[in-house]
């Protein structure tokens, strides 16, 4: 059995600032493995161990995703090897384009039985790459996956539904998006970090992949800071906490907020 787990090497928007003209300043942000991807890797590692499967990491992105620091960060979390598509044209790629590139890489890797992804990327958070990827491959996709067991061609998958859990059986290859809390990722130790440096890293050229052309072309024509609702900005004197509380409660009642 061959399991691919996708991950993203990117920056967290919590560390970004937005300039007055709406452009995003990433200069103070440090790239890392996207927040929920370690969860997907942990979930995939447990399944791979139970099923005796090979676990392959896959990522596609702009310059930097193939640096030793990035590949070691991924490999130390339990991947057997990684496949990287590092091409600067992918930095600004849309969800659909990125998914098509990942699908082409899955086909190139060959004989893949299962793709596991994180819940969403920390930067774009669209939750659409796994679903378009499945569409490109013609495979079923299931999101919010909390547990997975079984073998290639006979998987038992649990997924969160509102108010409960649903168990699915999947016969055939599939794309599973792990829920944000599907597993608690372990922190790699020194031994794993050292071993990561010796694991195989395959770089694929984007131009060598069979990626179907997109029918849609996106052009960004404007950027802005989001509009904010006008707020009262009224400060309540807090010298006497009880009086301040009474004033607040009165104001909230008058505003219909209570």
């Amino acid at each position, binding site marked *: 059995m061959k399991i691919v787990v996708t991950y993203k090497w990117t920056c967290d928007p919590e560390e970004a600032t937005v300039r007055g003209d709406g452009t995003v300043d990433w200069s103070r942000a440090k790239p890392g493995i996207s927040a929920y991807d370690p969860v997907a890797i942990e979930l995939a590692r447990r399944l791979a161990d139970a099923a005796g499967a090979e676990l392959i990491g896959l990522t596609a992105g702009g310059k930097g995703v193939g640096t030793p620091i990035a590949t070691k960060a991924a490999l130390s979390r339990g991947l057997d090897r990684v496949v990287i598509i590092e091409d600067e044209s992918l930095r600004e790629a849309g969800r659909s384009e990125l998914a098509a590139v990942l699908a082409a890489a899955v086909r190139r890797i060959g004989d893949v039985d299962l793709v596991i992804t994180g819940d969403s990327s920390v930067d774009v958070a669209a939750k659409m790459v796994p679903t378009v990827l499945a569409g490109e491959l013609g495979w079923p996709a299931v999101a919010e996956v909390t547990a997975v067991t079984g073998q290639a061609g006979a998987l038992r998958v649990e997924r969160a539904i509102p108010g409960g859990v649903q168990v699915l059986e999947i016969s055939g290859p599939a794309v599973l998006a792990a829920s944000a809390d599907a597993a608690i990722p372990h922190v790699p130790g020194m031994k794993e970090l050292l071993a990561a440096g010796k694991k195989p890293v395959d770089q694929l050229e984007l131009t060598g992949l069979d990626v179907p052309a997109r029918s849609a072309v*996106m052009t960004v024509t404007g*950027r802005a800071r*989001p509009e904010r*609702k006008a707020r009262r900005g009224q400060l309540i004197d807090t010298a006497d906490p009880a009086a301040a509380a009474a004033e607040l409660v009165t104001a909230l009642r008058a505003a219909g907020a209570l």
Partner: protein
Amino acid sequence: MSVNAWIIVGDQPTVGNLITVARALGGPVGAVVAGPRSVAETVAAGGVDRVVWCSAPGDVPAEASAPAVADAVAADPPRVVLSGRNPSERVLLGAAAARLGAAVLTGARSVSIDGGDVIVVNAVFGDIADETVAVSGPVALLLDGGPVPPADGGGAPIEEVSAAPLPLKVVETRMHDFDEVDLNSAHRVIGVGRGLKAKEDLTMIEELAQALEAEVACSRPVAEGLNWMGKDRYIGSSGAHIAPQLYLTVGISGQLQHMVGVTAAETIVAINSDPNAAIFQQTDYGLVGDLYQLVPAITAALK
């Protein structure tokens, strides 16, 4: 009749907002339903021009009909294809987007058509910035589905298609015996930030929540890092986006990444000891002071 917009529907007819957005584009609107027949009927009565219903056996989840949905959409290619945000709707939209080679956008604030282009104002990076995007070619949009559409008196014809479903089936459904938090349906929400000194102090916040009939939520560091609350309770760019009547923050500094989750709140109150905290630029009522005095005082005032 060739459609301008397709709406993709899973097993819930919560598509009121999608119909409104699709209608505003002008031109015929179709719906593809991968759920029970009753959902197709509700959508057909809700103001669309045609409905394609992908019928499937009962133990098959909506996701299994992804190829049938993609086929139906590709048979009459639209300018725009829309779905709600729940997991099965995302899967169906992804299949349609892959088939169409469509662009995918998930933060649309407005959608319009200008000649050959679809123009989308799209919130990016957890809504901290807006981009206006012109798309030539088909666009797949993930939007808030909205309520069940009321019957508009009309009834669109329903065409049934039955394609071989993908090989997945439901074998068991277990419901939790506890209530999950639904911040979106809460009228009042208290947001707790790092200004709170210890986890035990959440008791004081719970008391305020009880007096206020509010849900308790938090900023990201309180959920991820301090782990004082579940991730389902954190508000912000990558967390929940809510629109309550009242959002009362306690010890939250007001970083952009948190505040984008509450821009739609009716009234915002902030309690913070730092008079220069960014939060005071974004509130209706601000209280500069010690939260350990102010929170119990407000709880008392509500009683």
